[in-house]
C-alpha cells in the first residue's frame, strides 16, 4: 500500500470510497426519480415530446375534481380495509393458535408462510383461474350445495374488489402470522399460568393476557399491512386491469393507465405524488412504532 492507512488523507477518502457505489446508484435511480415525479406533476408533459411547460397546480386541481381518481382512491381504502381485517384479525388468531401447538407446527407454519414468497404475478394467475365462472371456487360451492353463491368472481362489480383483496391476503397473511408469532414468544409464560390458576378460560386468556401484551406488535402489523396494500399493482393489473369498468381500479393501476398508457404523464405523476405522500406518512408511523417496540 502506498497510502498509510491511518493517514489523514486516507481517513477522509475512505468514507467516500465505501459509500460511493451504493450512494451513486441510490441517488440516480431512487432519489432523482422521486424529485422528478414531484416536478413532472407540475407540468403538462406527455412523456415523449422534448417540450413541456409548467402549469402550476393544474394537475392537482384536475385530480381533485376527477371522479375516477376519487373512485380509485375510495377503492384503495376499501381494498386496504379488507386486507387489514384479514391479515391483522385472522393473522393474530392463527398465530395465537399456532403458538399453543407443538405437533406439526413447522408443517402448518410452512403451509401458511409459503404463499408469501410466491410472485404476485403467479398469485394473480392462480386466482384468476380459480375465480373463473367454471373455476375451482364455483365447483366447490356447487359441490357443497351452495351453488347459489357461485358467480364470475372477477366479473361481478359488487365482489371483484373483495375477491382480489382476498387473494392478496392469501399471499401475505403469512407475514403477519410470523410477526405475531415472534411477539407471542416474548409474552411472559407466567401470566398464562397465573390466569389459569385464577380459572380463566382460553378465550379470556386471549382477551386479557395475549391481546394487551401484543398491542405494540399489532400496531406494527397494522401499519405494515396498510403500507403494503397501498403499493399493490401487480395482482390487480394481471387479473382485471381495474375492471370490470372501474370497479377494481386502485391508485396504482389508474396512475399506470394515465401516465404510461395514455401519455398523460404530468397527471400520472400527480397521482404518483398522492401515492407517495400516503405511503410516506404510513411508513413514518411504522418506523416510529417499530422503534418504540424495540426499546
Amino acid at each position: 500500500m502506498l497510502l498509510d492507512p491511518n493517514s489523514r488523507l486516507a481517513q477522509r477518502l475512505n468514507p467516500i470510497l465505501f459509500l460511493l457505489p451504493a450512494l451513486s446508484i441510490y441517488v440516480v435511480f431512487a432519489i432523482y426519480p422521486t424529485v422528478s415525479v414531484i416536478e413532472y406533476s407540475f407540468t403538462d408533459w406527455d412523456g415523449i415530446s422534448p417540450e413541456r411547460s409548467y402549469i402550476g397546480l393544474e394537475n392537482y386541481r384536475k385530480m381533485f375534481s376527477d371522479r375516477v381518481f376519487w373512485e380509485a382512491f375510495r377503492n384503495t381504502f376499501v381494498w386496504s380495509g379488507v386486507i387489514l381485517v384479514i391479515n391483522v384479525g385472522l393473522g393474530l388468531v392463527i398465530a395465537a393458535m399456532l403458538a399453543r401447538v407443538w405437533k406439526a407446527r413447522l408443517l402448518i407454519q410452512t403451509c401458511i408462510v409459503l404463499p408469501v414468497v410466491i410472485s404476485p404475478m403467479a398469485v394473480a394467475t392462480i386466482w384468476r383461474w380459480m375465480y373463473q365462472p367454471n373455476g375451482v371456487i364455483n365447483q366447490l360451492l356447487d359441490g357443497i350445495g351452495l351453488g347459489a353463491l357461485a358467480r364470475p368472481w372477477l366479473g361481478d362489480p359488487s365482489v371483484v374488489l373483495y375477491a382480489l383483496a382476498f387473494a392478496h391476503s392469501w399471499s401475505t397473511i403469512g407475514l403477519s402470522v410470523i410477526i405475531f408469532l415472534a411477539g407471542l414468544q416474548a409474552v411472559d409464560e407466567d401470566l398464562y399460568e397465573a390466569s389459569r390458576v385464577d380459572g380463566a378460560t382460553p378465550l379470556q386468556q386471549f382477551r386479557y393476557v395475549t391481546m394487551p401484551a401484543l398491542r405494540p406488535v399489532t400496531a406494527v402489523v397494522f401499519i405494515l399491512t396498510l403500507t403494503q396494500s397501498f403499493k399493490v399493482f401487480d395482482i390487480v393489473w394481471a387479473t382485471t386491469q381495474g375492471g370490470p369498468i372501474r370497479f377494481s381500479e386502485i391508485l396504482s393501476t389508474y396512475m399506470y393507465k394515465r401516465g404510461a398508457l395514455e401519455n398523460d404523464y404530468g397527471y400520472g405523476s400527480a397521482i404518483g405524488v398522492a401515492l407517495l405522500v400516503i405511503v410516506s406518512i404510513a411508513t413514518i408511523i411504522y418506523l416510529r412504532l417499530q422503534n418504540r417496540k424495540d426499546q
Partner: protein
Amino acid sequence: MARKWILLFILGVIAVLMAAPLVLTVFTSLKPTTELVNPAWYPPRDMTFEHYLRVWTEGGFSRYFANTLIISAVDAVVMIAIASLAAYAMVFMEFRGKMLLQLLFVLGLMIPVTAVVLPLFQIVRSMGLLNTHLGVILADLALAVSVFVFMFTSYFAGVPKALHEAARIDGATEFQIYRRVVMPIATPAVVTTALLEFLWSWNDLLLRLLIMTREEMRTLSVGLLNFQGTMTRDVTGLSSGTVIMAIPVVLLFLVFQRSFVRGMTAGAVK
C-alpha cells in the same frame, strides 16, 4: 387434551386451505388435456410433463427464466457488496454529514416503487438502458438498498469496537478490516440480503413491464403476464408457467426457511 386436538384440527384445515391453490395449480400443470373435465382437486391420473416442455421451449419460458435468473443473481451479489460497504462506513468511520446521509437512506424506506416508476422509466430510457439487464438491475438496487444498508448497520453495530480498533492498530487498512474481520461476523446478514433481494427481484412485475418491452428481454413475470393475455384459455400452459416461476423461490424458501422468516420480518418495510 381434547382442546389441543381441536386446535390442531382447525390449524390443519387452515394449512390445507392455504396450500390448496398451489397444489391445485401443480395438479393442473401435470394433467393431460383429457383430464381437464374432472374437478380441479382430482390428482392427475396419467401424469405428463408435456405442458412444461411446451411452455419452456415454444412458450419462451427458457429465455424468460434465464433473464430472470441473471437479473436476480446479479442483484443479490451486488446488493451484498454495496450495502455492506456503505453500512461499514456508517458504523466504523467518522465523517461530516453522517446524520444527513442516514436521513437520506431512511427516505429510501418510504419511497414506493409504484409511485416513482414513471420518472424512473424516463431515466433508464435516457441512459439507453431500456431492454437491458443492467437497466433493471440498477433500478432494483437503488429502490431496495436502504433496507439492506440498515440491515447491515444493525449487524455491524454489534461488532465489538475493540476488535475493529485492534485490527487498525495492527496496521490493517479499512478494506482489510471490512473483508477479514467484519464481514465474516455478518454472515447471517449476508444470507438474508441475498435471499431477500433475490426474491424481490425474481418476483417484481411493474419495473420489468416498463423496462423490458422486447420479447427476448422479458422476465418470467412479464412473460407470464403476456402468456396470460394471449393464451387465456390455455389452462395447462398457464399453470406450468406459474409453477416454473414459483419453483426456484419455493425451493429456496424450504431450504432457508429460518433466514427467510428473519429477513422478511426485518425487511418487511419494502
